[in-house]
């Protein structure tokens, strides 16, 4: 368990992040509270409602775990120790975990690895948590499209392997060129109001985790979709391609 050191107080950034996480947690809690109320009003129990409630509870718990991981590492003021990680396996796992939520929002979930490359240098637990946190926010993006796509993607660039979560309605973030360019957003109650019903805490939790992995989160494009992504360095370990 993490305790702030006595007398140190909580930094302004951490306070804003904590508020943002608390605000974000309202969404799954509201879903669970109102779904159970609705189920009690109905004569027959719809088991799919129970499944949906379970996935919202799981999402809330994962957001809390990710937040605790990020705060824990940040409080030690040390970067995470990076190791060789297979992106294809990790992205597929995260997609699998996000699929119940994507189904509820009627979002088609895809994994796209563009080009051939080996493992990347990262921290598997933190990377998984960061991508999951991003996916949990982006999946609920309001959309007018008939077919909505959320993509967990990776592609090779001159400076490394760009890995992130993209959405077909992400263009609803006009004029935002990068989180780093607008740090005051994080201090607002709903810094990404364009995203929809929450505080988008998952974006800031992911940002903190990527910082702990010595990289940063930015708005990026990937094959026609916009999203949040970070650049990871290729591992020098030989990969079996």
């Amino acid at each position, binding site marked *: 368990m993490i305790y702030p050191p006595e007398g140190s107080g909580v930094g302004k950034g951490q306070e804003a992040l904590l508020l943002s996480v608390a605000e974000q947690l309202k969404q799954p809690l509201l*879903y669970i509270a109102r779904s159970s109320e609705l189920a009690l009003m109905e004569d027959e129990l719809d088991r799919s409602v129970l499944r949906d409630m379970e996935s919202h509870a799981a999402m809330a718990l994962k957001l809390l775990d990710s937040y605790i991981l990020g705060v824990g590492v940040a409080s030690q003021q040390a970067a995470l120790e990076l190791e060789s990680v297979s992106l294809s396996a990790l992205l597929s796992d995260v997609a699998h975990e996000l699929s119940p939520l994507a189904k*509820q929002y009627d979002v088609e979930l895809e994994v796209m690895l563009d080009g051939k490359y080996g493992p990347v240098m990262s921290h598997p637990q933190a990377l998984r948590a960061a991508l999951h946190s991003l996916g949990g926010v982006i999946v609920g993006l309001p*959309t007018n499209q008939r077919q909505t796509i959320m993509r967990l993607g990776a592609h090779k660039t001159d400076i490394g392997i760009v890995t992130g979560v993209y959405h077909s309605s992400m263009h609803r973030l006009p004029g935002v060129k990068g989180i780093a360019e607008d740090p005051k957003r994080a201090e607002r109650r709903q810094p990404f109001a364009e995203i929809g*019903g929450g505080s988008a805490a998952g974006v800031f939790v992911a940002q903190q985790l990527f910082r702990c992995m010595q990289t940063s989160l930015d708005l990026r494009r990937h094959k026609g979709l916009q999203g949040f992504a970070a650049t990871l360095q290729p591992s020098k370990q030989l990969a079996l391609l």
Partner: protein
Amino acid sequence: MSKQLLLIEPDRVLGAIYARALEQAGFEVIAAQNAEQAIYAADSVTPDSIIMEWEMPGHNGSAFLYEMRSHADWSEIPVIVHTRLQAESLAKFEGALAQLGVVEVLYKSTHRLQTLINRVNEHLPVAV
């Protein structure tokens, strides 16, 4: 004939729950996720009441209500704000809420589905 409600809820999954509860209470629900979709609906339908989240993607509730009230057909429709915000966050909009014909503010964290249904019924215009 059932009364028509325009429900503006940015979160699609949460919106589906509110819509289902209101439909079971006998209303016909037109769902919108943002102000743009809601204004678009104004071309084809005049709802009996509007239930709306104050924090919407791209707009806040007052921008939407000013736009909505400028349509003659929509100028008298009762509006219930049903929000995830807390009372102190809405305090600065108190004047606008009254001026724009908001008849009730309900908080999603504390007000249950049945309360929402009851309040909608209370505020529906009485047929002459």
